[in-house]
């Protein structure tokens, strides 16, 4: 430890830099309750997509793309077309595609075969099977080419009977060849001849193959670290909290580890190290370790990163909480350096950096050779090289082909497949967009009687469609679900204020929900009930109270049976009981400054979010007018219907630690109802209306705003403050309620087609009942599919996307290019929507392609840890990313982003806005420009924008959504829907499908 003193003299920057580097690359997931989707590889966003995924594979060990088998299956079922493969392959090979590798076999042909066919299996048993039982001549080439190939080969083999033995490597050559039989079934012999020659021209093929990263094989220190870290991060699950947490993770851990009797009992070295380190703080200890292990300063960053990656879940949590204190659930310090120090305390860094290759599984040479030979033989058969020609090839030819295959290796093949997969999807979208655009241009939109604003969320796409299909005079608008209101919100039942605004932005105002009437009794009853509940929670786990709870445990049979057999009824019963017992008061929002009566009292116990206390409570009129004018202008809303419903969204589910991941992403994983409600309250205020008029936005006096929330799991729609709606609107309000009720039933109906447990022929009413039960079903790991199908983002006027069936796959952002002369609005919109949409999309992408490294695996063994995250079973690292059950029907494609703007305008914005620019030029999204004037489409690619010629014949038209999705479980291609369009259009185009 003597080195410590000297090392203190080092410039402090190096360690901070190294830790900063590590923090950047560690998983950046917040505690589960504030789950916000983000690009899993955010740290690599400065690179182009394909480079980034490979770099991340090197560093983090995650897969870059789906396994090749998944692409081949998609090809087999027609999801990827042959022309997509050809086009992307051409794009990838460019002018090198036509170079011949063998006589008559171009590089393109070779690559194509390598993509579509599995040439050589991965393991020994499969290789043996191919050699013995392979049927490549049965399956390929097509019958027409096959006969001559076989006949030719047979003639060649029989030509020289003495050579036959050698060519087919027959141990004891048959003295008399059974010619009739051979002519009847020449395949095995011919195949054998190919394989024999292939193995002759395959030499020295020992080459490296990387294997899956091994799990670190010494679980003990990790296990100890996990225990300490989860005890430290715990926000109220353990009955006895870890002592000394106020002094930080390292100090608290050192004091514990220095004592005897813990689970580290048998490891005396740890105890000694802890005793020695008592005087140090985390940083000093890390410096000491670096010195003791003799790690050079230049290596610090790499070394620290690789060390922290071994405990990446917990380390990432420390880094995330250190970067943003407001996410922390406890007031204790969270420092990444402490996490590293504790890790090194339980497992000191090894003196020399052991290279990773030493742990890699090396394929033994003979096996690689066998595989190569198989690949060569099959390649020859698949490309139709006939046997005489093939036998004429020598080892140099073999080498050349194998080198070519090596260069066009697994990852490259998957990269091309990925592009083809995306191309097929993108073009299906663009064809439908083009067809719909052409249809819409002939129409004039009806004046709206009802406007419903929803979040841009892909899950609201169907709700909006089902509202609009009911009447041409209903219009929906897509606005980011926080409605421009950057608030910290505390509902009457919330212990603290929580931010409801996109992650990374700071709240500007504090909004409280307050009882509108005197509610002393309610507050008392609520506290009493919660105390009782908490007492039951703790008591059932302790010894004596637990025995009382156990002896009366038989009473639990009732809720248990109800929850398992009648979840919907159980949920209703619970809600009803709670309502009866609590009688919650009517509430109002402290929307305007100076109107809050009791904010002081409630703010006082709010120690976690001290920053929020400084926020003004409520908006003043001018601020409100600014926000509203901005939001409405950006969304292109300048005409108002008599009733304007602003819907936020959230999601309720039971038995689901990832519940917050289904909530509104624009509200930091919170419920967006408060924002929508506040939006309506502000917009209804006459003073705000006057101020809006000054800003050039006239809202007619008769227009009434109503806020509400849509639960995307149970499809419940709740409207707030309905007593504020004047009587003149009673009829319209009643109509609106009917419309929403109908729309939510249809929304549920459209959703349940994805759930295998619901028969396809179910009625909307039954579907609604199902999703209501499903949300509260303990046994349901998929309460809803969340963003699972997201793939598209449309930014533009609703009139152009209205009539499109996008299968709940599209973020729909309202934007009016005709009112945005210099592109400022679009820049603003893309700056906020781009990262959110891409973040959701890419998190789903990575959690799908590697469910263990980027995703958190199956939910079934998950164990909630300290209210912070989940781990696998008894003890593991914190698992980050999305569980298998959230992504199992996801198609990992990058977001197809169609923006109603000219290519020039988009290039200009990409240059002006670095956030957008990185996503676009790096290929993290697939950008398409839709010219607002002509409707022409331009795809963005490596060479800039290129025009796309749509194929309108491929797009189906349906009378309504139901006709399109009914009786299908799988993804539906985008289509045109005629319901809800003005009559003129309906007569023009008859549905082409019933």
């Amino acid at each position, binding site marked *: 430890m003597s080195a410590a003193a000297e090392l203190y003299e080092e410039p402090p920057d190096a360690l901070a830099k190294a830790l900063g580097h590590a923090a950047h690359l560690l998983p950046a997931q917040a505690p589960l309750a504030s789950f916000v989707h983000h690009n899993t590889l955010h740290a690599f966003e400065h690179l182009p997509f394909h480079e980034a995924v490979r770099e991340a594979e090197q560093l983090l060990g995650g897969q870059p793309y789906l396994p090749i088998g998944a692409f081949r299956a998609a090809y087999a079922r027609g999801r990827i077309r042959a022309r997509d493969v050809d086009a992307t392959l051409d794009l990838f090979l460019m002018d090198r595609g036509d170079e011949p590798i063998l006589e008559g076999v171009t590089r393109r042909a070779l690559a194509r075969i390598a993509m579509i066919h599995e040439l050589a299996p991965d393991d020994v048993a499969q290789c043996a099977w191919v050699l013995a039982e392979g049927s490549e001549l049965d399956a390929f080439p097509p019958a027409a080419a096959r006969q001559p190939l076989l006949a030719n080969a047979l003639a060649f083999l029989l030509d020289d009977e003495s050579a036959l033995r050698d060519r087919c490597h027959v141990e004891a050559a048959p003295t008399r060849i059974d010619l009739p039989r051979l002519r009847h079934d020449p395949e095995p012999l011919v195949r054998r001849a190919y394989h024999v020659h292939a193995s002759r021209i395959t030499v020295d093929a020992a080459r490296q193959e990387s294997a899956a990263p091994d799990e670190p094989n010494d679980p003990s220190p990790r296990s100890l670290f996990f225990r300490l870290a989860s005890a430290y991060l715990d926000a109220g699950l353990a009955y006895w909290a870890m002592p000394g947490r106020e002094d930080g993770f390292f100090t608290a851990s050192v004091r514990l580890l220095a004592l005897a009797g813990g689970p580290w009992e048998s490891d005396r070295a740890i105890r000694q190290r802890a005793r020695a380190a008592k005087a140090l703080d985390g940083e000093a200890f890390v410096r000491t370790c670096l010195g003791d292990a003799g790690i050079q300063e230049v290596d610090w960053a790499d070394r620290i990163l690789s060390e922290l990656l071994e405990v990446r879940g917990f380390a990432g949590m420390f880094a995330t909480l250190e970067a943003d204190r407001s996410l922390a659930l406890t007031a204790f310090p969270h420092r990444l350096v402490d996490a590293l120090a504790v890790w090194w305390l339980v497992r000191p860094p090894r003196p020399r950096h052991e290279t990773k290759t030493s742990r890699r599984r090396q394929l033994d040479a003979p096996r690689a050779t066998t595989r190569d030979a198989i690949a060569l033989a099959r390649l020859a058969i698949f490309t139709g090289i006939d046997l005489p020609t093939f036998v004429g090839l020598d080892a140099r030819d073999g080498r050349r082909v194998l080198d070519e295959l090596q260069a066009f290796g697994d990852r490259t093949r998957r990269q091309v497949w990925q592009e083809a997969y995306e191309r097929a999807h993108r073009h299906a979208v663009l064809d439908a967009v083009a067809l719909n655009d052409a249809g819409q241009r002939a129409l004039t939109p009806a004046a709206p009687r009802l406007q419903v604003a929803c979040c841009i969320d892909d899950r609201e796409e169907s709700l909006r469609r089902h509202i609009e299909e009911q009447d041409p005079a209903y219009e929906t608008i897509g606005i980011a679900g926080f409605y421009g209101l950057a608030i910290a919100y505390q509902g009457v039942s919330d212990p603290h204020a929580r931010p409801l605004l996109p992650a990374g932005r700071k709240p500007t105002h504090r909004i409280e929900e307050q009882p509108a009437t005197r509610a002393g009794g309610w507050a008392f009853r609520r506290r009493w009930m919660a105390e009782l509940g908490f007492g039951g929670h703790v008591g059932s786990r302790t010894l004596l109270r637990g025995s009382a709870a156990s002896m009366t445990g038989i009473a639990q049979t009732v809720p248990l049976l109800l929850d398992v057999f009648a979840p919907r009824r159980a949920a209703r019963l619970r809600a009803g009981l709670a309502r009866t017992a609590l009688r919650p008061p009517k509430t109002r929002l402290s929307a305007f400054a100076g109107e809050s009566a009791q904010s002081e009292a409630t703010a006082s116990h709010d120690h976690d979010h001290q920053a929020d206390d400084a926020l003004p409570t409520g908006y003043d009129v001018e601020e409100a007018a600014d926000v509203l004018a901005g939001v409405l202008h950006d969304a292109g809303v300048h005409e108002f219907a008599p009733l304007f419903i602003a819907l936020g969204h959230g999601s309720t589910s039971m038995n689901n630690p990832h519940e917050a991941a289904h909530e509104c992403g624009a509200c930091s994983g919170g419920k967006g109802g408060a924002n929508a409600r506040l939006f309506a309250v502000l917009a209804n205020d006459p003073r705000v209306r006057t101020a809006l008029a000054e800003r050039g936005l006239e809202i007619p006096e008769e227009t009434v705003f109503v806020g509400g929330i849509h639960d995307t799991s149970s499809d419940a729609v709740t409207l707030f403050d309905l007593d504020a709606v004047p009587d003149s609107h009673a009829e319209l309000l009643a109509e609106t309620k009917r419309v929403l009720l109908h729309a939510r039933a249809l929304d549920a109906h459209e959703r349940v087609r994805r759930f295998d447990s619901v028969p396809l022929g179910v009625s909307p009413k039954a579907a609604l009942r199902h999703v209501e039960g499903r949300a509260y079903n303990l046994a349901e790991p998929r309460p809803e599919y969340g963003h699972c199908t997201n793939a598209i983002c449309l930014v533009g006027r609703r009139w152009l996307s209205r009539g499109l069936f996008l299968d709940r796959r599209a973020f729909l952002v309202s934007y009016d290019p005709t009112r945005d002369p210099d592109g400022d609005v679009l820049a603003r919109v893309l700056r906020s929507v781009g990262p959110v949409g891409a973040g959701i999309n890419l998190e789903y992408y990575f959690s799908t392609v590697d469910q263990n490294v980027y995703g958190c695996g*199956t939910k079934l063994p998950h164990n909630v840890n300290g209210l912070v995250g989940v781990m696998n079973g008894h003890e593991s690292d914190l698992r980050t990313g999305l569980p298998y059950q959230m992504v199992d029907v996801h198609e990992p494609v990058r977001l197809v982003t169609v923006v109603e703007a000219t290519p020039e305008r988009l290039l200009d914005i990409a240059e002006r806005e670095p956030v957008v620019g990185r996503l676009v030029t790096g290929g993290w999204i697939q950008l398409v420009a839709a010219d607002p004037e002509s409707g022409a489409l331009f795809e963005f690619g490596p060479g800039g924008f290129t025009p796309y010629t749509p194929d309108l014949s491929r797009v189906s038209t349906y009378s309504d959504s139901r006709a399109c999705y009914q009786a299908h479980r799988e993804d539906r291609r985008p289509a045109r829907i005629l319901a809800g369009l003005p009559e003129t259009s309906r007569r023009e185009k008859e549905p082409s499908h019933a």
Partner: protein
Amino acid sequence: MHELVGGLAVVALCAPLLGALIVATTLLRPAQSRERFVAHVARAAFTISVVSAAGVLALVWVQGERTVSLGTWFVVEDHQFELALLLDRLGVTMMALSAAACGLIGRFSASYLHREPGHTRFYFLLAIFAFAMMLVVTAGNLDMLFVGWELVGLSSALLIGFFHERPAPVQNGLRAFATYRICDIGLLVGIILLHHHAHHVMVSNANPGAWSATIGLPAEAATPIAIGLLVGAMGKSAQFPVGGWLPRAMEGPTPSSAIFYGALSIHAGAFLLLRARALLDAAPMAAAAVIGVGALTAVTATLSGRVQADVKNQLAYAAMSQVGLIFVEIGLGFYELAMWHLVGHATLRGFQLLRAPAILHELHTLHGGIGDFETGRFYGLVTRWFPSLERRLYVGALGRAGGEGLGRALARRLLGLAHRAARLEATLTDERDPQDAPVLQEVHSS
């Protein structure tokens, strides 16, 4: 009526077994088409089982306890191995509880394990477990109980290792299995001694409520038998000091954790002691040992449970401590109370484990009502009055008051023994020193 009860009991017992066999044969079919069929078979088997068990329960409570003889397996001189079911109130209550819990979990898992690659395997093991557990609770003699007992252990270990693509579940499953096997030595010794003393294990209706062989033994005969059974019970019920496997068993899918370690399997040991109460009555020393083991477990487990920061470990320790209390009650002779405690605890804990993933949701709701959570009151007092004691208490709790260390030391001894045995075998069979047994090493180090 006699035949009816017996017939119903056999149906309740065999329906899951038959279900398991059918489920197993579906493994020959392609995976995609399997799930629905398996769920149907399981549902049918469990429904039949639950209905029949309910019938047995009603008949026995109304008409009285009885023994149902199913024939004799074999006779060796005056030793007779008889197949019989003992349908007393304890047994049929446990039988109904087991059938109901398995049926419930079967229903629950239909959606919970949807699209899980191991879906068929899960149902197979669950059905095997249902059969085994019911066999344990209705067995007419210790020999039959032992068959069920072993199957319970096997299905438990295989479900802990359900996710066998990761090393931790496999290691922890092996640890549970090893613990079971070692403690089963006690049970086996008990059985052999019982055979020795009772000469034949006759089943008769003279003394319903207990195996007739266990009745009327003198203390010096009863004590070693009871101690043997206690050792067996300690393994299955995770008692001090061999209970370290229980928290580690939280590796399988949530519903399997709930039924094994919340509801049924964890109580098998307590049941065995209840069943052998005639022995405990005759052997005060053994009863004292039961009290000692139970009390030690209850205290260490509740201590440990208090510092767990994750929901499943917390519940595992909570279950361990309550089962410890049940042991104490049994040792003290409060059999009715223990029975009541057992059934209530199985329901409560099973339900809690089943909804363990909902803890975030539940605590968030409570959190809204009371603001910040408080730490334990007793702990609060200790930390205020004896600040120096706080850390020691905490560390001790983390280490299960020495239970961890003891378990580890035991594991090390056993490992040494296993290695020695392996070497011996290698010398005898003239093979080179097996450098395998990596799994054993991992068990030791975990």
